[in-house]
């Protein structure tokens, strides 16, 4: 073995040692917190009571509906007292109603109502309970909301007068407009839809 190759061997060994030290140093000095944790432990566990107090949504399959029965005649009484001033009685008026017409006695081509535009009956219950009457939102009892829901379905000619509306029957109602609904199919690119 000649001298120069021994020398080369030393050089390689030193270089390798240097690289190993550098890697070890990097691993050692690297901030141990660099990896973002999956969980931070912020926030409090939500107890069942707390969830129940806010969990007011109703889904099309009936999840979230409280037990209850709606009576069309009772609904008309409540509607006359608490809703008609803003939503009208289905007749044409020559001024703008504060709220949309919810049903029309004489169908007009353009009018969007529960009977002509809403795809699910459960939405009526969910929306009235959370937001109406506009001047006193959240003031109706579940029972009142059932009555109003029954009345509005009847006034829109979706159900006949003798229908029983409750947590089982409401999700089963097929709304006239349901068949017209399509899911958005735009996806950018050159198509105009």
């Amino acid at each position, binding site marked *: 073995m000649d001298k120069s190759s021994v020398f080369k061997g030393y050089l390689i060994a030193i270089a390798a040692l240097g690289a190993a030290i550098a890697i070890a140093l990097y691993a050692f000095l690297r901030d141990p917190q660099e990896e973002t944790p*999956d969980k931070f432990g912020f926030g409090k566990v*939500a107890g069942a009571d707390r969830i129940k107090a806010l969990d007011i949504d109703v*889904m*099309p399959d009936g999840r979230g509906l409280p037990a209850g029965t709606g009576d069309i005649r009772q609904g008309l009484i409540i509607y006359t007292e608490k809703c008609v001033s803003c939503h009208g009685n289905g007749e044409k008026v020559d001024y703008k109603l504060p709220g949309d017409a919810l049903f029309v006695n004489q169908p007009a081509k353009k009018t969007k109502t529960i009977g002509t535009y809403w795809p*699910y009956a459960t939405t009526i219950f969910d929306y009235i309970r959370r937001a109406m009457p506009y001047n006193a939102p959240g003031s109706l009892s579940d029972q009142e909301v059932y009555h109003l829901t029954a009345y509005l379905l009847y006034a829109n000619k979706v159900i006949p007068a003798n229908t029983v509306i409750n947590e089982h029957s409401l999700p089963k109602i097929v709304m006239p*407009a349901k068949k017209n*609904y399509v*899911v958005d199919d735009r*996806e950018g690119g050159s198509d105009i839809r």
Partner: protein
Amino acid sequence: MEDKETMPDALPAKPEPVKQPESPRISRRLWLSGAVTAATVMLVRQSVGKVAPVVPSAAPEVMTPATDLAAVDPTKVIGAGPSGYGTTSLFEKPERLTSLTSSRTPLQNLYGSITPSGLHFERHHGGIPVIDPDKYELLIHGMVDRPLVFSLADLKKFPSVTRTCFIECSGNYRSGKAEMTPQEICGLTSQSEWTGVLLSTIFKEVGVQPAATWFLAEGGDAAVMTRSIPVSKGWEDAMIVYAQNGEALRPEQGYPARLLLPGWEGNTSVKWLRRIKLSDAPFMTREETSKYTEKVKDGKIRQFSFVMDARSIITFPTYPVKVQKGWIEIRGLAWSGRGKIERVEVSVDGGQSWTAAELQGPVLDKAHTVFRYLWNWKGEETRIMSRAVDETGYVQPDYETLAAARESKGGYHFNPITKWLVKNNGEVFHDSPKSDDLS
């Protein structure tokens, strides 16, 4: 004039021909501050105290005498002192255009791409609630491993993210008149720099279950606003934001915290966010059935049209501006909910030829992008317009193309090219299609 006797004797050393002030209160201040130049120590002391109320934040009384203040040589009067929270110059009065349930951003009065927080458009369904930040809570439950409640302080502890993007109401289309400003036609779009926590960070914290496909976002306002959102958007780029343009959210923008879904129709960025519920199906709330759906061809009703298609509008020169022959910098905004603006094309010959406008960089994802086009107007009557092209290759359609594709003359997600008629006398008018507003 009647307030003459109340004026001090000491007048400005070299009085400018100051117009007689109309308000006695202001006139006294003006003259007093003018008296400072007469340099009696006593008067200086007196005036320092009395000059202070001339700070523009004393707005209502200072507003009318703007011209009087303007008439004073500002180098001869001590100016107003510092204030706790600054406001606009008393000569500048950009304003939102309000209706009972919305207000519109004055696009034609703004510069650059950020909308000042106080001019961000509003649309609410039950008014603006007052929410105490110390009592604020956000509940996340449903198909999660750990239902949790977060305080505002909790939300702020998470790693934060800042991003600039637009929010546009999907009902952002008005037409029908020649006398319409950009604000009236499409003022329901605004842009802010938002700061908050990524929803994906929160999703990991609560452990969203793999079977969860939709979530309900619910607001704490009188409408208890609700929208169903695909969980995928939550993982992609949704945020819960608590700050706007460097400060806490404005009340009308969801204080103390709102959802932010970049590029999606404004209503889905639920304000005053109080609850998120993970589920395996959409909830079919009123706001995604009766409203925020649009009639499309064959009598169909399109639902869950989340993304805002690319759009642009010239904001200068527009009604009611009157221009002069010569060089005019045409200015405007372009944006797309699907990503970056690739190109904006401008036509100054009624749509016969189109030229690429200059884009102000950096061009951001899902963000208002400023464009400019230098035009040497020779005085001929013509129509000027812009069209946006986004990175997916989508080209903003003209009114006829869009109306034909939809079999509709307006309504939600209606984003046609806006045309402006420039008369040979320099007057500019909205060249309005004969459409009805169906939204």
